[in-house]
């Protein structure tokens, strides 16, 4: 017995030793694999085929980010030859891991021309990532093999952590680029350029759905920890402790009102009792629901805008007995209150190509490192073009489905443009019969007020419900409505602008009928019918106790009465 036990013990310890040896071998093996991880020749070859099919048009056959589509894209496609990648789990300046590359191809970058690639299999993504490593010699350098930084799991977000994050946000100087309220409007914002000299915009921290590296708390924490290589966004891995970076994450997490933009197709104008008074500003609009509409580039009429800096507007609407008023708000990193703008200003065709150059516009010094010592004070940015916004409604209430063309109307169906050049004190009205046919139509009906505060434009338009010219607004009616925004700093004017397609404005009737009355009426009516039927049946057949009814056919009641 004992000898058998001992033998068993010997065998098991032998097994154990073997397992340990195996484990060691695996560990050393993987330690070696932590060197260059560039896949096999076959994988890279397969990746190359995919790259030439799907990626090279933007990133270039040579991986230099200079594909034939690149000049119309902003932010510019990544130049792979430098080994600088934005979204990584590795320290600032380091190469990304294989998984980092796979992840970014798979997820894409929101609000850029880099799409997600859900159609590619895991094997294909992996092959592509391996092929991308061939563009930079750094990937084959064992010294530069990427090591991931420690990214500990998320603690719970608390009021205290958000408060601490807010303090750190100011102390660390985040507001220099991202602005005090996180709207991407810090004083340095208009001067920033990436490592290749292209202008680059700091993230609007109040619109997390636009974050390039993803919008989860884990994504934000990773970006704070590793920075975005090739951009002015630094890593805070050494400057801040894990808890501090989590606190900052919680603060940034708290800046967006929602996780998603919540785009809608409808703005509801709410009735207000007091007469609308423009001098009271935006306070009036508190009762009105906020509608967010996506802004896209005007890429239908020449000269096109492929990358409008404004990605959405929020709109609220109210009306009193006389007038309707709309409040349009959007974020802009630098207000342009001088110069001029107009819906039909001509733009030379060559401005379609190439990234916007705000730094060139103002002649200010470009800043790649906003944290550098003795940083020159960013020069005031100025463009010859001012910021502007317009609301577009049909000149006549549409009958049936027919609407004017969504870009400034057409020859048969004109639109009214409520245009506000924000360098001027008042809005003006135009009649649009297509992009090439816009004429002033100032009846003096339109008034407005605009203000810029901490990275946000708030513009109020007010017009009589029944104006001397233009479609009347009537309660209970839907009206097509569209918006355009011009960013002066990006030299937007005329057709180069951000716009929306047609959406709807609904003028909510003053009193929304309550459902209680009809509900009670219906219920009482049905109850009365029920009681009448039961009463009649009981009267005819009498109330019975069990069994009396039997299985016999009912006798006609008349004989019993």
């Amino acid at each position, binding site marked *: 017995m004992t000898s058998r036990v001992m033998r068993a013990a010997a065998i098991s310890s032998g097994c154990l030793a073997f397992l340990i040896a195996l484990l060691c071998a695996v560990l050393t093996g993987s330690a070696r694999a932590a060197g260059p991880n560039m896949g096999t020749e076959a994988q890279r070859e397969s990746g190359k085929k995919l790259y030439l099919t*799907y990626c090279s*048009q*933007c990133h270039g056959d040579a991986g230099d980010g200079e*594909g*034939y*589509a690149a000049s*119309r894209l902003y932010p510019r496609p990544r130049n792979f030859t430098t080994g600088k990648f934005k979204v990584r789990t590795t320290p600032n300046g380091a190469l990304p891991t294989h998984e980092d590359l796979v992840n970014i191809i798979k997820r894409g970058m929101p609000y850029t*021309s880099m*799409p997600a*690639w859900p*159609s590619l299999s895991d094997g294909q993504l992996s092959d592509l990532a391996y092929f991308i490593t061939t563009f930079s010699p750094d990937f084959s350098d064992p010294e530069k093999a990427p090591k991931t930084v420690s990214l500990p799991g998320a603690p719970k977000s608390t009021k205290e952590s958000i408060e601490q994050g807010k303090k750190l946000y100011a102390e660390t100087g985040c507001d220099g680029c991202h602005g005090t309220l996180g709207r991407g409007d810090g004083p340095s914002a208009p001067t920033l350029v990436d490592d290749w000299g292209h202008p680059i915009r700091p993230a609007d921290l109040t619109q997390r759905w636009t974050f390039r590296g993803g919008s989860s708390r884990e994504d934000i924490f990773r970006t704070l920890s590793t920075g975005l290589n090739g951009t002015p966004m630094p890593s805070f891995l050494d400057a801040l402790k894990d808890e501090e970076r989590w606190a900052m994450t919680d603060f940034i997490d708290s800046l967006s009102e929602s996780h998603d933009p919540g*785009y809608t*197709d*409808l703005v*509801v104008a709410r009735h207000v009792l007091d007469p609308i008074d423009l001098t009271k500003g935006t306070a009036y609009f508190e009762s009105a629901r906020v509608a967010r509409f*996506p*802004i*896209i*580039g005007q*890429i*239908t*009429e*020449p000269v096109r805008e*492929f990358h409008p800096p404004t990605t959405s507007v929020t709109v609220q609407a109210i009306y009193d007995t006389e007038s309707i008023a709309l409040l349009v708000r959007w974020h802009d990193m630098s207000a342009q209150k001088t110069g001029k703008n107009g819906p039909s200003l001509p733009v030379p065709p060559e401005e379609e190509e190439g990234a916007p150059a705000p730094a060139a516009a103002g002649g200010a010094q470009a800043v790649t490192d906003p944290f550098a010592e003795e940083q020159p004070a960013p020069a005031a940015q100025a463009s010859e073009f001012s910021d502007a916004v317009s609301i577009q409604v049909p000149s006549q209430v549409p009958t049936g*489905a*027919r*609407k*004017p*063309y*969504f870009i400034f109307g057409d020859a048969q*169906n004109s639109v009214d443009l409520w245009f506000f050049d924000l360098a001027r004190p008042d809005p003006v009205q135009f009649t649009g019969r297509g992009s090439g046919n816009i004429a002033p139509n100032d009846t003096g009906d339109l008034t407005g007020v605009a203000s810029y505060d901490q990275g946000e434009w708030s513009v109020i338009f007010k017009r009589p419900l029944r104006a001397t010219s233009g479609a009347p607004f009537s309660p209970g009616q*839907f009206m097509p409505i569209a918006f355009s925004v011009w960013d002066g700093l990006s030299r937007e004017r005329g057709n180069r602008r951000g716009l*929306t*397609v*047609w959406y*709807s404005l*609904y003028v909510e009737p003053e009193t929304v*009928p309550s*459902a209680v009355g*009809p*509900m009670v009426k*219906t*219920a*009482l009516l*049905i*109850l009365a019918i*029920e*009681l009448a039927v*039961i009463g009649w*049946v*009981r009267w005819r*057949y*009498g*109330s*019975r*106790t*069990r069994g009396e*009814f039997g299985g016999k*056919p*009912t006798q006609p009641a008349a004989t019993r009465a």
Partner: protein
Amino acid sequence: MNILVVLAVVAAFGLLRFGRVSLLVWAGAWWVGIYVLLRFGFTAPIPASVVSLYMGIVSIAILAYVSSSQERRDEISRPLVRFMTDKRYTAFLAATVVAIPALAAANVYVQMNVPLQPPLFSRTVHPASPSEITVHDKKIDLDAGENPFRHLEASSPTEFRTHVENGRKVYYRNCVFCHGDNLAGNGMFVHGLDPIPTNFTDKGTLPMLRETFLFWRIAKGGPGLPEEGGPWDTAMPAWEKFLKEEEMWEAILFLYDSTGQRPRAKEEAAK
């Protein structure tokens, strides 16, 4: 037809047949059975208004049937009368008397609180093209015409590839913003567009269209659509403003080549 639903209804009727249930149950079963068939039995959904029209007819038919003889009238009324008069059912009867008005009131509430819906325009996605268009002062016959580069596919494959590659460049410099990098109609501006851009990878789209039809839609864009296509809503540019005629034909070659699809052949002349 949704076979599973049809089979389930048939099975339920079979069970009732062997269960020897009363006429009242049969009447109810026919009503419910036909409703289920109309509502869930068809793969393409039938509009609610049409369903309620049919159900009205069904209700009348059932009433006519059950009241067509004294025997049937008695068979129907007996259980109902028992339910309303028998003391055993008093509590159940009271509950029913309360429940029906409550449900009706709830229905009124739901009807009055439908979320606001902007008026809907149901556009025709691929309206008929004109038979001839003029692009850059040149008349293009859409009925009898062909893609001028298509014949190269057989006669000169290398030259054909050059044109496909030119088409790829045109696509990625112009179309990609809406139709997307993988041609699936999901470009970077798609969240701000209504109607949404065409998905070229869809098996039911490109193969159903002739190249000359695509040429018309590309050259004349949204504004070139007839009324039923909703020309005022679509952001599709009239590409003749930006592209040469050859570039548009080349882009069409690329669309078919990249998605591995074949254009629809020319219709045979009607005999």
